[in-house]
């Protein structure tokens, strides 16, 4: 009797807690879902319609937009360019931020100052700092070419060449995002137990061996995080392209995400933008899954 009574009381307490929890959580979750889950659903449908968003109703056109996407080389080229340009940005950022983290992982009174300085480019929005690059890169009277001329070198016509525009896009991208990535790496480096290195030293392991057997395994989780979030980020990168090269020279640095933005927000061609978003989203998720699979497989082998 006593036992049963007690159980009942526990149950009601649990129920009460659950009711309370839902009362707090549900309104917030519903509100958040309206603004983020709903667009996800709309987005999946949008690709099958012809719609200009501001007047008239969406018209169901079936697979027409997807046929346009895969039918001509234009969109496919943009998708491929999004992948390799994004890939280059990501690789450059990961490698350089790791080196920077190693450089910052030194005890010195100036370390705090250096850490702050490398982070500062990130606290200004991309739009705010891109003007400097445009002013410097003007092929005729930009700061950089004038400097080259004063050294007696030939000026480089940056905007003629895909190589240089991609290069500057990467420089701008890395300049903005190397700080945060380096700080994440640094957090990882510092969380590795220092006694492991001591022990290795006692065992007579060389610096290279220490890095190979202690540092790299210790950073596996961090590197997975940086790679995965970075991957998702660069697959949607276009503000940098819009601000630095505008897709020039002659569309050679244009990426799919920029096209989606122009289709949707400038030309109001929502159907095509929706279809392209769906494809790009799926490709991103697919790549992220493959990357995740490879990383976790590597984990098991160790």
């Amino acid at each position, binding site marked *: 009797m006593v036992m049963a009574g007690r159980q009942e009381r526990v149950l009601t307490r649990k129920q009460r807690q659950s009711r*309370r929890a839902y*009362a*707090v959580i549900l*309104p917030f979750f519903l*509100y958040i879902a309206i603004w983020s889950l709903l667009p996800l659903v709309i987005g999946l449908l949008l690709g099958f319609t012809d719609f*200009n968003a*501001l*007047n008239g109703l969406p018209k169901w056109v079936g697979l027409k937009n997807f046929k*346009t996407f895969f039918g*001509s080389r*234009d969109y496919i080229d943009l998708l491929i360019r999004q992948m390799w340009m994004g890939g280059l940005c990501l690789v450059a950022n990961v490698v350089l931020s790791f080196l920077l983290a190693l450089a910052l992982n030194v005890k010195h009174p100036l370390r705090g100052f250096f850490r702050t300085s490398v982070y500062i480019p990130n606290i200004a929005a991309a739009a705010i700092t891109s003007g400097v690059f445009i002013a410097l890169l*003007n*092929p*005729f*009277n930009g700061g950089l070419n004038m400097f080259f001329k004063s050294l007696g070198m030939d*000026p480089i*016509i*940056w*905007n*003629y060449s895909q190589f240089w525009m991609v290069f500057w896009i990467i420089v701008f991208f890395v300049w903005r995002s190397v700080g945060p990535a380096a700080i994440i790496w640094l957090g990882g480096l510092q969380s590795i137990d220092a006694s492991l290195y001591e022990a290795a030293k006692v065992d007579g392991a060389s610096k290279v061996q220490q890095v190979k057997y202690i540092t790299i395994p210790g950073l596996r989780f961090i590197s997975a995080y940086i790679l995965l979030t970075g991957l998702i980020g660069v697959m949607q990168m276009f503000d940098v392209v819009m601000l630095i090269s*505008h*897709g*020039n*020279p*002659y*569309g050679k640095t244009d990426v799919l995400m920029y096209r989606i933005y*122009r289709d949707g*927000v*400038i*030309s*109001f*061609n929502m159907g095509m933008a929706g279809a392209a978003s769906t494809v790009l989203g799926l490709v991103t998720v697919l790549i992220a899954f493959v990357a995740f699979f490879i990383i976790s497989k590597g984990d098991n082998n160790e």
Partner: protein
Amino acid sequence: MKKLIAMLLACTMIFTMTACGAQKENDTTETNKENETTTEATVEPTKAAETSTEKIHLVAPKVGLNEEQIQLEKDNAAAENRELSPSANFYIGVTEKIAEQYPNYEMEYVDWGWAETLDQKQRSLILSGNAPSIVAGETFMPVYASSGMLEPLPQDIVDMVNPSFLIYDPQGRPVSVAYKSSVFLLFYNKTLLKNAGLDPENPPKTWDEWKTMSDAVTASGNGEIFGGGVPSFPHAGGSLRATPFFRQMGVDFGGGLTINLTDPKLQQTLQFIRDMNANFPAGLGNNSDEGPLWSQFQDKDKGTIAFAVNGSWQKGALVNNGFDWGVTALPLPEGGVVGNCMVGAVYVGVPTTAENKEDCFNLIRVLLDQDLQKFWLKEGTPSALNMYIDSSAEYPDDVTLQAAAEALKGGAVKGLTTFDKNDAQVWEIINTKVLARTTMTNDPIDQICNEAQAEIENLLK
């Protein structure tokens, strides 16, 4: 606990409701007010506007300047130690005239940029039923006209202006007017021609002559002085300057739902543009920033380019610099026809969905005021008014303006051609993947054209 949640929910609710309510209230009062004035205005067109005590709110880009912009113009002029420019004087004059003639107008002079930015803004406002009183623009105004977004102009406005300055809708009614516009002319620096051993008083008449002269200047310039050619900026500035040359060959990019980049005459013209580009310092003729090119041509001390294709307003800068220059009509190709393109035009029109249309047209009437229009003549830009195009009495000594007026007189000069579908994207391809690519690379021209042709056909399908 419950209290807190209740409070929170209440807060959110109250916020949303007030926000909603405020928005709605605003909307309804605004429409009410505007409806009232519209009815008034239709009953008694201009009088009603003058006598009514009710404020009419009008939003207009490229019409006048707000106090702050006026101050900025004055500050800039003071900082550079010069008088106000004719164009600043014109806009200030329009602002004052509107304030004087229509005291009941509550004007919002907006600065929405120019070209793509302006187009995007106006388009989204019109599509969203929030149309401004006036839409302005250059390259995209024919698109607005052909999609029926603009109200036909009243007859009195149409009668005042030269037909070159009008844009017609598909039914053939004039719907938009440029209150100023120019055509392209060839400016040249006599000193540089003389230094290169050429006759400065005998400007080129044909493409071949022009190319020979330009090549000669470049050759004798030792990498310091250049002949100059046809600019191919990777935006509308490029296609505007290239179009007259295509039209002289009797071709254009197409229009409507067709594109004819495969036309051999068009490719021949592209070849000419590419050849002429060798007479620019690298990167100058196809930079997104047009500024350096013009300053290289017109600066008194630093003038390093002999020929420049630009609208007649270029004269303004040359006169102020006291520089030895000349101007002539664009050279013609062999067997070519006279062709040109409207440039530097500010077209204005009233959206069909605008409120208080008659008041909007009043703004256009002020823009076309004959006294204010004289400011454009001073700048070297032809005025839209018949009285200034047909007679050069106001500018007897101005050869530039006379040459431009001569080209415009026939009333047949058109702006850039337009496409019925995806106009902006098609032009983007022409500007970057055809014109800029022609001058930036050495890719075979038929390859460039075929690739772009395929891509554009896809967009026009």
